[in-house]
């Protein structure tokens, strides 16, 4: 699929689908050695509602990962949730993590709370479900909200925090935020198979960071312009539209009246 995107074989609306982006990126990452693919990317995930730290930055290289795309989870209330990706990490010292990734590209949360459904917030519901799943499996949970912005979606995340705290007054709501744009920083210039494809994908989708202003090309010494107004006739009565001195010949057609 990633080759189809890079070669422009997908429709623009397909390119813009977050599921395809998720599949493309993590499909490549899961084929790369974890220490040069997945872990450096996860290391950029930032705790923006808490102490601005990066709790996944120092995972051991020997960590192994299991990927579960779009799992169907039944909540304690009997509802079905389908997060985009769940990654289970097993560290060499026996520590275990479960990471839920909710990925967005051009859209925001799929559900938001309102008066009729005060807990109907996608992030709050998934966060709560992740905590329950982590408890069942004996793993430390991390929730990652993966978006396309340069800046974290603070309002969305704060709104989710408020919803979460309505039902969980004593628990902390500390999702991590990660940007797709980190791909361009983490993998650019790296020689491994997969890195180049990921960087091409980031370039194609303009998932980039500000790196200054590119140099302008030198302008031609003679700037182009219409030689004369297109409606101006020359001495021989022939209208000329170009300034390269090509003979234009007599125009021998006209619009039908």
């Amino acid at each position, binding site marked *: 699929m990633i080759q189809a995107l890079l070669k422009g074989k997908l429709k623009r609306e397909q390119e813009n689908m977050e599921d395809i982006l998720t599949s493309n990126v993590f499909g490549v990452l899961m084929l790369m050695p974890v220490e040069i693919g997945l872990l450096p990317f996860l290391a950029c995930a930032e705790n*923006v509602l808490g102490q*601005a730290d990066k709790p996944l930055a120092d995972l051991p290289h020997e960590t192994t990962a299991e990927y579960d795309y779009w799992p169907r989870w039944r909540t304690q209330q009997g509802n079905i949730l389908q997060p985009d990706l769940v990654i289970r990490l097993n560290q060499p010292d026996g520590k275990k993590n479960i990471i839920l990734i909710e990925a967005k590209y051009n859209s925001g949360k799929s559900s938001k709370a309102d008066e009729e459904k005060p807990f109907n917030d996608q992030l709050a519901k998934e966060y709560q479900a992740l905590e329950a799943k982590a408890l069942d499996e004996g793993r430390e949970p991390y929730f990652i909200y993966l978006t396309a*912005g*340069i*800046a*974290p979606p*603070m*309002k969305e995340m704060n709104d989710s925090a408020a919803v979460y705290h309505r039902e969980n007054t004593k628990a902390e709501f500390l999702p991590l935020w990660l940007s797709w744009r980190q791909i361009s920083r983490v993998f650019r210039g790296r020689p491994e198979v997969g890195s180049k494809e990921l960087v091409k994908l980031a370039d194609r989708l*303009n998932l*980039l*960071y*500000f*790196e*200054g*202003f*590119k140099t*302008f*090309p*030198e*302008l*031609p010494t*003679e*700037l*182009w312009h219409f030689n004369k107004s297109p409606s101006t006739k020359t001495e021989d009565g022939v209208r000329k539209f*170009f300034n*390269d001195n090509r003979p234009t010949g007599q125009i021998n057609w006209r619009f039908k009246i």
Partner: protein
Amino acid sequence: MSKNGIPMQKSLDAVRQFLTDVSLMLQTADGLLMREGWNPIEKTRAIPRGKQGLDQPEGWMPGYAYRIYEQRSKSIRMSIGVLFGHVPEFEHPIEQPFISAAVYKKVNAKVKDVCSDGTMHGWHETLNLDGKPVKKDDVEEKRILKAITFGWPLVKIENEADLKQFVTDPLIQQAKEL
């Protein structure tokens, strides 16, 4: 293709790249300021609504891009504008693209924001693009009580660190002094 066609296309491509870079810079500014509690008043809007008519080519490309930010106080605003082309309200020709940054206090929170607030370009003739803040009272009698503004040549900003050092950090500092 004529001898000038290729450089012409390269120039046009460079303009598109320039606009992309301006977009990335303003998004980066969003991120830096949001971390300090200053949020954009509009989700993604960055250019004024332009004229698009056949006989109004000066409106086909925006003359500036901008973002306006608010904190808890709804009457104090922050703005970052990038001026790079035809700006009807600006009397003087623009010699080079520049950043215009401002903190301003509105008469009250109900005063409607307008896109020219994003650049404060009405009085840029007082600026030397050296980063030195200029204070002004009674900017607009019925809208804006006072403002502090400063400018830089755009080429001074080469990365996120420059943007923070020369633009967003000084803005945050001046907001405390307003």
